[in-house]
Structure formats: structure tokens, C-alpha cells
């Protein structure tokens, strides 16, 4: 539903996007990833008509977005900027109500449908219970849900979000991403988000767009395009891509950058927890990982203490489930 044609955009003298042709699938969760300053936020801002392109156009269902009245665009496209300014003392319901702006006029400031949409949006984002609280007293995660509720009150088919999980702790990141996922799956909304975390992108995205210096390097379903080669290409980072133990989506694990980071106590943990499940092969394959042996044994002695060097005792760490164990076998063969 959103696409760009020969898009050139940037700030002042700096051109960030130079001739970008892009197609964003409708009814999908699209995630844009890339290193810092690769132009992903610029792209999102241009898509959301927050930034006027120097050349080319953003098309919304085939019509150039700049030819549409901004009010009409606001009824079809919701936008959540990167770090919106929280107005002092505004209550949650009040802020969510601002999302009805494109449906209001100064002589027609409120109607039944506004009430209904605000109620709906607050319920969807799970902020109904906060309705009367001032937004500036909420936690980061709650605040982000309130902002999302505001864009939901706009009743748009599509939602564009610029790094909606930045500055949130992991639990709140998951919470926000789950909300976006629900919107896409249960409400059929098109969601486009810029994310920093590749693994979250792989987990939630239907369509992944990887960018580097203002150009799209790869686009497609994450399970097809997210490979170690792509990560090296885009981020310049050596990594291992394994299936995520929980979802099976690609999981990006940075390669070993320093031998001292590979602690045998960790290997012991793996071997140990694998022990009870009777996978002798695992212990074996972890054992002969040669070079790490002698260097690591002193480490192991230091941290574990009474454990005899070379024969690590099973570490009491049963946290890893069987799903993890069944896949850990692939780690030693990463060939770094």
C-alpha cells in the first residue's frame, strides 16, 4: 500500500536517501533495520510525510502522498515519531483523544464516533485503566502504549513507528512488539516499524528491510533473507545465525571477538544441563574444542573453585529448557 518511487531525501546539505524504489506490502508487519545513520528513520519519516522528499514521491495506494490533504493522510496513516514530547499534565484519555484530530473541526470538536474510537484504542493498547492519569507520571512502557493508543484512535489502516522500543527495558519491548503483532494479526493493520534489535525484527516481522547507507540491501521474509552474510554486509559484523529455540526464526549471535569471552564455565553449563538428558554426544563435541581447553581451565578453576581442572562438574543451572539443548549442538560447529 505504501511505496516509494525514485525517492531522494535528506536534511539540509546531506542527502540520506538517493533514488530509493521500495514497495511495502500491505497487511503485513514490516520492520526496517540497519546500522545507525543508514537512513532508516529518514525513510520512515519520509513515508509518513514528516519529511518532504527532494525528488521522487511516496505513494499511498498509488497516489502521491503530497497531493493528498494532510488531514486525509492522517485518517489512513498513523505515525509515531521517535521520541514524542509529552505535554505537561495532559491525561491519558486527553492525549489519546488528540488522535481524533483528523476527524474534528474547531466547530465540531467531539462526537459519538470520537468517544467510541478513543475507548477502542485505549482498550486495544491496554491503557483504559490509566485514562485519568497524567501521561508524564507514567513509566516508559506505559507511555509508549499511550502514544500507540493515540495513533490507534486515528483509525488508520497503516501504522508507522520509529524505534518504538528504544529506551524500554526488555519486558516492555516485548509488550510493545506483542501489541503491534496483535494489531497486525487480529485487526489486519499494516504495521511498519524501525527497530534496532535484529532478533526482535526476525521474530516479529513478516517482511524485513535491511538498509545500509541509504540503500536497501535486502528485503523479504526474515527467515529467507536474514543470514550471516547479510549481517556482515549490512552491519559489518561477523555472526552466527541459528534458529531461535523458541520461535525458530533466525537468531543472530555475534561471533567471538575475543578468546577470553569464551568461558568454559559457560560450556560446562551447557554440557552439564545436557548431561541429565543423556546426550553424551554433546559433551563430547563441546569437549575437544581444543584451544579453549587450557586457557579456560584456569578460568573454570577460578570461578567454580573446587572443581578439578579439565573435568568440569555439572553446573547447577537447569534454567535452559530441552528446546535449547536440542539445538546447542550446532554451536561448536560455528567455525570461527
Amino acid at each position, binding site marked *: 500500500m505504501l511505496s516509494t518511487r525514485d525517492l531522494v531525501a535528506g536534511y539540509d546539505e546531506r542527502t540520506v536517501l538517493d533514488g530509493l524504489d521500495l514497495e511495502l506490502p500491505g497487511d503485513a508487519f514490516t520492520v526496517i533495520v540497519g546500522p545507525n545513520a543508514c537512513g532508516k528513520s529518514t525513510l520512515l519519516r519520509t513515508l*509518513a510525510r514528516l519529511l518532504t522528499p527532494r525528488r521522487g514521491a511516496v505513494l499511498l495506494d498509488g497516489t502521491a502522498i503530497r497531493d493528498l490533504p494532510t488531514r486525509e493522510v*492522517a485518517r489512513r496513516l498513523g*505515525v*509515531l515519531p521517535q521520541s514524542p514530547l509529552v505535554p505537561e499534565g495532559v491525561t491519558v484519555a486527553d492525549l489519546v483523544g488528540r488522535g481524533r*484530530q483528523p476527524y474534528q473541526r474547531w466547530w465540531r470538536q467531539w462526537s*459519538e464516533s470520537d468517544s467510541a474510537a478513543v475507548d477502542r484504542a485505549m482498550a486495544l493498547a491496554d491503557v483504559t485503566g490509566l485514562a485519568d492519569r497524567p501521561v508524564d507520571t507514567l513509566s516508559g512502557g*506505559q507511555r509508549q502504549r499511550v502514544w500507540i493508543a493515540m*495513533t490507534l484512535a486515528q483509525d488508520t489502516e497503516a501504522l508507522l513507528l520509529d524505534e518504538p522500543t528504544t529506551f524500554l527495558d526488555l*519486558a516492555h519491548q516485548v509488550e510493545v512488539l506483542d501489541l503491534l503483532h496483535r494489531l497486525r494479526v487480529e485487526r489486519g493493520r499494516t504495521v511498519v516499524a524501525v527497530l534496532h534489535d535484529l532478533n526482535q525484527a526476525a521474530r516479529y516481522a513478516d517482511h524485513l528491510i535491511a538498509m545500509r547507507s541509504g540503500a536497501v540491501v535486502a528485503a523479504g521474509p526474515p527467515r529467507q533473507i536474514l543470514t550471516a552474510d547479510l549481517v556482515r554486509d549490512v552491519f559489518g559484523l561477523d555472526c552466527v545465525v541459528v534458529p531461535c529455540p523458541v520461535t525458530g526464526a533466525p537468531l543472530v549471535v555475534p561471533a567471538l571477538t575475543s578468546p577470553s569471552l569464551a568461558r568454559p564455565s559457560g560450556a560446562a553449563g551447557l554440557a552439564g544441563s545436557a548431561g541429565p538428558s543423556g546426550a553424551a554426544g554433546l559433551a563430547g563435541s563441546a569437549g575437544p574444542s581444543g584451544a579453549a581447553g587450557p586457557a579456560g581451565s584456569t578460568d573454570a578453576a577460578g570461578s567454580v573453585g573446587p572443581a578439578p581442572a579439565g573435568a568440569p562438574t555439572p553446573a547447577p543451572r537447569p534454567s535452559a529448557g530441552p528446546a535449547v539443548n536440542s539445538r546447542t549442538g550446532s554451536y561448536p560447529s560455528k567455525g570461527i
Partner: protein
Amino acid sequence: MTAPTVERPVRRSRPGVAALPGRALVRLGPVSVQVRRRSVLVAATLVVLLLAAGLLSLCLGTPYVALPDVLRALSGTGTPYDLVVLDLRLPRLVLAAVAGAAFGVAGTLIQSVARNPLASPDVVGVTQGAGLAATVALTTGAAAVLVAPAALVGGLVAAVLLFALGARHGLAAQRFVLAGVAVAFALRALTEVVMLTADPIDGMRAQIWLIGTLAGRGWTETLWIALTLVALLPVLAWAGWALNSTALDDDTARGIGLRPVARRIGLAGTGVVAAAMVTAQVGAVDFVALVAPQLARRLVRAERPPLVCAALLGALLLVLADLAGRRLFAPTQLPAGVLTAAIGGPYLIFLLVRGRRRSS
């Protein structure tokens, strides 16, 4: 994994069209307007206080006129006090109320564009433009009737200068204020040059004009300010609504289908015209424009200054300031401009202290 705190969704009963919390919906045919309940309360209180202050101001003075006589004079039944009440005190009282309201409106609009509680017509240079033009008119011996029109033109020229300098980057708050400060300083310097080179007597008259006083002014000035406000009324109705979005950042505002730059230009333009007109008529009674919006905002507990309440509070402040100026050191009259600061300042300090205590 730690579960994030889950708030129990509370379904509040919402019969029919409910407005947002703390608001009431006023409907009149196809027109529906959202009003903060608290601002209705504050506005009603301010109207009562304004009436009381007005009556007090008609009573006090030399000679003292008792309230029944004031009421009789106002009802037009003819009393020995008609001259004092109707011809001497009433015009000045009405002027104070109308000018105060105009200052309140101008301050509200300018502050919300500048996103700065310290912004006022004085800070963005409009007052200095009017002041320079008035000083030139007063020191070159131009006819007295030309002083106010000259000041109006001066204020508007300063506003044009302000917009020309601040327009880049869409009249962003910082730039708007900086451009205003630059214009204000340049014009103030010019005013001083004109004043120092002029005849000392003329310089003195200009000085008094600059401080701002209601003495010797009345219906003509009131008429001009009132006409300006009435002419701006449709714009002000829009502004009351548009002000709602001024607390949002530009990206968010664009996201919900607003044009923040056009909005700012409209709001600032309206504020600057109101400020230029009122300053031209009564001089730089400035503190009202600075303090009335902030006091009103705190009283209403809104995130931005409320237009109507700020206007009412401006009117009340100026009426009280003029009354105090007349009576405090009688028979010496102090200009209202001096007294507004004396009344508004401590109250703002009180609110700041109270606000800090509550938030800590």
C-alpha cells in the same frame, strides 16, 4: 520473566457522547465544543471578581462614592455623581478591562507559539516597535492624535521583522524567541537614541508613554482595542481550539493531520496584532501579558494557557493595578504598568513555590 504491571481495565459508564475526562461537551445544533469543566469554574469566578473589582474601582477615589450611588448612576437615573462615575471613572475602568483582556489574549498566543512562559509582546519586540514609533511621534512634535496610529504601525513593522527573521525552520519556538529578542534590543537601542537627542520635556513624555498608563484615556482607546478583538473573534474561536495542539511536537502534530507551521504563523500573527493594537493605545503595560496566561494556566491546570481565562484574568489584573495606581499613593498617581508587576509578580512566585512543593 517479570510481568509488566497490568492495570485493570476499568470500564467507566459512558452514556451517549461523553467528552474526555474533565471536559464537558457543549452542543448547539451542528456545533459541538469541548470545554474544560475547571475552566468554566475559573472563568465564572473571574467574572464575579472582575465585576466586584469594577464596582470597587467606581466607588473609590476622591470623592468617595457609595455603592448605591454608583449603581444608581450606572442605571442612568441621574445622580450628583454622574460626572465622577460615568465620565471620569467608568471609561478608564472599561479601558482597563478591555486592554487587560487584549494583553491576556496576546500573551497567551505568543507564549504558546514560543513554548516559553517568559515570552510576551515585550520579549518579541512588538512593544519596542510601538515604543520607538511613539517616541518618534512624541519628540518630533507630531499631533497627539498621531501617536497611537504611529505606535500601531511601529508594532506591526516590528512584527513583520520578527516573522522575517524567525520564519526559517517554520517559526520554531527557539528561533521565534531569539528573533524577537534581537528585534527588541535593536529597537530599544534606537528608542534610546531618539530619546537622548530629543528635547528633555519630550523625552519625559515618551518615558511616561513607554511605562504605560491609563490616565487620561477612555472611550476612544477602548473602542479601538474592542474593535480589534471583535474583528479577531473568528480567528480567536479557531485559536482556542488550535492552541490544544501547541504542546505537541511538530512530528506528532503532522502525524495527526495538522500543519504546525501554518498554525504557529496564524496564532503568532493574531497575538502580535492584538499586542500591537493594545500597546499603541495604552502603552507598554507589559507584565499583564506575561503573567495572566501563566496564572490562568495554573488555575485551570491545563498544559497550555487557556485563552478565555487568560483574557479575564488580564482584565482583572489591569483593573486592580489601575485602581491601586490611582489610590495607593493618592494624590500621586502611579502608572498601571508599574503596579501590574507589583501585583502579578508575588502571586506568580507564590504559585511557583506551591507548585514546587506539590511536585516534590
